[in-house]
Each structure stands twice: as structure tokens, then as C-alpha cells.
């Protein structure tokens, strides 16, 4: 009974946060409410037995997206106020659409089709890892994950096409020392998450996101001057995830017998997955950090 109460309160909170963020007059309120909404979403995932997602949502959804929004917000400061748009037409239309969605969502059969998850459980032993989500991500649907890494890289390439100067404050001694204190812990935590990914909720994305937040904190306090696209090492690491994935895929093709793309042999599966995941974590961490932190002002983004 207590859980139901928790659910009701959580859902109500989620909806009010989202509604307030959308309808608030000032943009600052919208962004802060949105970040709170992100944190609550992480809580919702935890409640719905999706620990992987809770980790990812907390690190990526609330953390990095929030940081990104605040950098964008800084530029809105001088912007002229927008006229207050009229509300009733969108309200009426959206109400109708959401009523329709609500009705169709309740048509969803309560009885789940468990054929796919049984197939996953059945093949888990052969997949080289014991945690089903990591198995699906890095073995059964590895092609999706590769493309998704590509999407992330692409966001970085796109963002580099439109470099805009980030107003960097000189670090204040307290925040500098705090960042120095936090970063080893974050590093340790992300390494742990990466390692545990094989057997328990964790893996490349959550570890990458944590590492990225560590890098971002350090960079915002002027620690990591080398963190830029021009630096060859950084560039290699950013591309390492994809290169590892593609190389592993091609290697799987060369192996005798099973000439199929992205199929890890059973014996080596665990090793390959761990290798690919480590490179992916580094790639994700650096990409997200570069996305949030952006380019140092002086060099024009030509390469």
C-alpha cells in the first residue's frame, strides 16, 4: 500500500515539475525545474526496477543535460523578452491528443509477451556476460550500440561546426580544491561501474557519463587545458570506442566458420565485450566532456 502512495506522489511530482517547466514565465525557472524533473525521472526508473537506466538518467539526464542547458541559458540573458504566446489553442489541441494517447495507452494488454526475454535468458550463458542488459547492448544488438556511439560522435562533430566561446570563470580556490577531491572518487566509481557492468547494473554509458562529469568539473576549474579536439591523444580516445567496435566486428568476420558481422565467439565474448566497453567508456566520457565544455577560444575549429 505504501508503494502505491509513493507512486502517486512521484507521478504527481513528475507531472507538476514538467508542467511548471513548460509553462513558467522565466527561462531560468524552466531550466531548474527541468533539472529537478530529471532527478525525479532517475527515481522513477529506480522504482520501476530499471537500475541501469536510473544510473544513466541521473548522470546524463539530470547532470550533463543540466550543465548544457545552463551554458545555453547564459546566452539568453541579454535576449529581448518574447511576447507571451496565447495558450488556449495549443492547450485544446494537446489535451485532445493526450486524451487520445491516454485511451490508446490503456489498450495495452496487461499480459506481457515474454517470448523475447525468455530468448535473452536462454542465450545469456553464451553471451559472455551475466547481466542481461549488457548482454543485449553489447552482444545481441551490438549494431544498435555501435550506431548509437556514432550518434554521439556526430553530435560532437556537429557541435564543433558551430563553435561558440564559453565564458570561463577563473577557478576559485575552494571549488578548485573540491574538484581535485571529487575527481579521483569519480574516476574510481566509473571504473567500478564499468567492471561491475558485466554482472550487475552498470556498463559503458553510465561509467562514461560519470567520468565525463568528473572531467567537466575539473575543466571548469581550469585544470585540464589539454582537453580539446586539436590534441591528437584526445581525438584518438574519442574515436577509440568506434574503432574498437568496428575492429572487433571485422575480426569476428575473419574468424573461420561463422562469417557474420558483430558475432563474438563464445570463448572470447566476455573479453571482447570488456575491451570494447572500456574504449567506449573513454570515448563517451571525452565526447560528453567536449560537448559540455566546448572548445578553448584561441584555436579556430578547423581540423
Amino acid at each position, binding site marked *: 500500500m505504501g508503494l502505491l502512495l509513493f507512486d502517486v506522489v512521484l507521478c504527481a511530482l513528475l507531472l507538476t515539475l514538467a508542467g511548471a517547466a513548460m509553462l513558467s514565465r522565466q527561462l531560468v525557472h524552466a531550466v531548474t525545474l527541468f533539472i529537478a524533473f530529471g532527478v525525479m525521472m532517475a527515481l522513477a526508473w529506480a522504482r520501476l526496477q530499471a537500475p541501469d537506466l536510473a544510473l544513466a538518467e541521473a548522470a546524463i539526464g539530470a547532470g550533463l543535460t543540466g550543465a548544457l542547458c545552463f551554458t545555453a541559458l547564459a546566452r539568453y540573458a541579454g535576449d529581448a523578452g518574447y511576447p507571451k504566446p496565447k495558450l488556449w489553442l495549443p492547450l485544446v489541441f494537446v489535451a485532445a491528443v493526450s486524451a487520445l494517447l491516454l485511451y490508446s495507452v490503456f*489498450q495495452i494488454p496487461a499480459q506481457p509477451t515474454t517470448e523475447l526475454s525468455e530468448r535473452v535468458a536462454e542465450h545469456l550463458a553464451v553471451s559472455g556476460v551475466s547481466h542481461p542488459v549488457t548482454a543485449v547492448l553489447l552482444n545481441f544488438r551490438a549494431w544498435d550500440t555501435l550506431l548509437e556511439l*556514432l550518434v554521439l560522435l*556526430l553530435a560532437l562533430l556537429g557541435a564543433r561546426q558551430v563553435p561558440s566561446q564559453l565564458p570561463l570563470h577563473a577557478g576559485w580556490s575552494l571549488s578548485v580544491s573540491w574538484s581535485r577531491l571529487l575527481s579521483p572518487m569519480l574516476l574510481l566509481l566509473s571504473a567500478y561501474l564499468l567492471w561491475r557492468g558485466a554482472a550487475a547494473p552498470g556498463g559503458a554509458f553510465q561509467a562514461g557519463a560519470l567520468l565525463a562529469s568528473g572531467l567537466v568539473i575539473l575543466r571548469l576549474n581550469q585544470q585540464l587545458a589539454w582537453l580539446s579536439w586539436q590534441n591528437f591523444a584526445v581525438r584518438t580516445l574519442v574515436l577509440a570506442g568506434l574503432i574498437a567496435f*568496428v575492429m572487433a566486428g571485422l575480426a569476428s568476420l575473419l574468424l573461420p566458420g561463422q562469417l557474420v558481422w558483430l558475432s563474438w565467439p563464445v570463448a572470447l565474448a566476455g573479453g571482447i565485450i570488456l575491451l570494447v566497453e572500456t574504449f567506449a567508456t573513454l570515448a563517451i566520457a571525452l565526447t560528453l566532456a567536449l560537448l559540455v565544455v566546448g572548445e578553448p577560444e584561441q584555436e579556430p575549429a578547423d581540423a
Partner: protein
Amino acid sequence: MWPAVLLVTLPLAAALLMLLWPRRARVLHFAVAVGLLPLAVSFLLQVTVSGEQQWFLGNWGPLLAIRWQADGLTTLLLLVSVTLHLLVSAYVGSIQRRNPLPAAFWPLSNLLLASLQALWLSRDLFNLYVCLELLGMVAVALVTLSGDKALRPALDYLLYSLFASLCYLLGVALIYAGYGVLDIPMLAGQLEANWLNAVALTLMTLGLMLKAACWPLHLWLPAAHASAPAPVSALLSALVVKGPLFILYLLWTTLAPAAFLPAAAYLLASAALGAMLFGGIAAIRTPYSKSLVAYSTVAQLGYATLALAFILRFNLPEFVAAMWLFVLSHALAKAACFLAIGELQHTLGARQVEQLKGASQTMPLAMFAFAVAGGSLIGLPPSGGFLAKWALLLGLWQSQQFFWLLALVVATLLSAAYVFRVVVLAFDRAAPTAPDFSPQRLPQYLALLPALLVWVMAVFSLPLLTLLKQEL
């Protein structure tokens, strides 16, 4: 398995290496682009000989793994994507000295090719979502190449594209809720005609039509394609817009239950009618040459959607052939148009259509390329457009659709109007706009190549139709 994998991973690997060593980007790019062509041709021949092939990535069996399928149509689309990729990069290479594109063009155009190839091959609903998203973001990144004037259109394009992908994802989620399967061939025929599937399919169609710039949802396309650099808008109009159309075709011909087909046919037909008419009228009225060509994309997509609508309604082989011939001939013709207009606009320094005056004297080759490609857009024999329109006419006569014949006549006249609006202006000898410098001949020849290819497409119609497995 080898050709399919290489067709996807070669451009991807090339892009990654280019990002690592930007100085050697062009050499690597042309090596890969040229290498891909024989690969795509051999893959096409292999499929025509040994019939349809399919693979399950990771060797995990149909339910669990992502399915890649390669039939006649897919290999044809793969080949066209590779040829246009090679052609456009040759064009960019040839104008490199005069108005160079930023160095990021090379890796991005490779990623565009990789995501397109992945989209053509994949038959998994969620994988198609990721490919669509990837395609949209590469396209937006390419649009921003032309500097700050393309920012607002690029951002609008990105937001529309994201919203469309989310609608599509919601549709996929609802279908997965009902059947727990993500594989299209496995879902074929299983969907019942209940409310949930109706909403799911509507959402997916809405998302895909928004991404394919079908008429009522096409607002982002003219601004984005007009502000992008000419070679980029050639790639966008010729290929990127066709990806979602391919998925729409997959959904409605294999997945959708029979009860929904008439309603969907009605929706698509009215969208097509709007696209043909309003796209044509807008193309006639716009003062800018590149947005004229962009609006013509919207109008020409109307033809393909009309053919798709009639596939759903009557399922005649003529309509299937008509749809894919429209897509292929439009890809080639639109690439030629954009390259020719880009060349004209750059040499004559003209954004307005009026300044193309006397272009047939100052830039005869580029104007000839535009005229020939325009001929295919109108559907003059012996071009590819004619072949597609011929198939569509046979289908319409066979199904006694007299109203749609009239609509097709009006649409063809509209397209003739906006093509010849430019061509007639080119013959004006009153005061031809002198080019700023002696025009380069190579880019004009490259613009002429696809135009001539599409001009004689009707001659080799028989191999094309056997490939599409439709006999008229």
C-alpha cells in the same frame, strides 16, 4: 555477407580515419568512394543472380538479432547512394580551389553514406529509429557547413527531425507493447486492426512523413536545402529525404493490417495531391533559384507518395515500379539540378532566378545540365521521369482513376512551368549577367553526368524493372 558489411563499414572506418588524420582526408575519401562503386555493383549482380539474401547480425537468430535484408530494390538504392556520393564528392573536389567547403565535409559525407547504407539494409524497427536519427543529425551537421546564415534553418530542421524521430519511437514502443517483436518480416501479417495498432501506425507514419518532408509537414525543407551548400543540398534532396520514404513503404506494404490500407491510401493520396500542387506553385513563385529547386523536391516527392498511396489501394506492379522509378530518377535529376544551380549561382553570383538571365550563353553546360535534368523532372521521354510517369499512367488507367489522371496532368504542367521558368530566362539575350571569372568546365561536366544518366534511363528500363521484380 562481405559486400553488405563493407558497404556500411568502409565509409564509417574512412570517416573515423579522416577525423584522426585530417590532412589526408581527401585522398582517403576518394580512395574509398571509388572502391565502393565496384563493390555495390558486384553486390547488385550477386543479388540479382542468387535472389534475396538476409543475415542476422551477431548470428543470434531472427527474434533476438537485428536482421539485414538485401533484395533487388535495396541493392539498387545502395548503388545509387554510392554513385551519388562519389559524384558529389568529385564535384566538391573540383570546386575546392574556388570556394572550398570546410574540411569537415569529408568525414560528414562519409558518415551520411554509412548511415544511409545501414538504413537501406536494416529490417528492424528500433534499428531503423537509430539510423533515422543518425541520418537526421548528419544532414543537419552538413547544412551548418555553409556558415551562420544556415544556423536557423538547421536548428529548425533538427528540432523537426527530433520530434519526428520521437513520434516514430513512440509508434515502435506501442507496437512492441502489443507483440514484443521488433523485426518487420516477423511482424508481417500479425498486426490486428485494433485501436492501439492504428495509433502506433499513425504516429510512425506522421514521424516518417515529417522526416520525408511530405506535403503538409514539409516546412523545414525549403529553408534547409536552400541555405545548405549546393553539393550538400544535392545529397540531401537526392538521398536523405528518400530514407524515411523507404521505411514508410516497408511499413505499409508488409506490416500494416489490410483494414487500415484504404484509410492510409486516402491520407497519402491527399498529401501527395497537396505536395504536387502547392510544391509546384511555390516553386513557380519563389524568387530564389535554390529554393525553387528545393520546392521542386517537395513537389516531386508528391509523385512518389501518390504511387505509394495507390500501391496500398490497388497493389498493382505498375505502382510499385512507378514509386521506385520516381525515387531513382528524382535522385539523379535533383542531384544534377542542385549541382548545376550551385555552379550557376556561384559563378554568376546570383541568388535570384532573374539573375540567371542569358545563362545559356555565359554558362551553356550548367544550363544544359539543368534543362536535361528538368526534362526528367517533367517526365519527357526518354528520361527516367518519363519511365516512372509511364508506369504510373498505366496503373491509373488500369484502375480507372480519372480524377488522379487529371491531377497528374496539372502537376506535370506545374513542374514544366517551374523548370522552363529558368530555361526560358537562360535564353534571354537582352543583358546576360557576365560571370565574375571564366567559369570552370569540370564542375559543369560533373553536374551534366547524372542529368545525362537520367535522360537515357528509359532505354535500360527492362533491367531496372526485372531488378524491382515488377513487370508492366
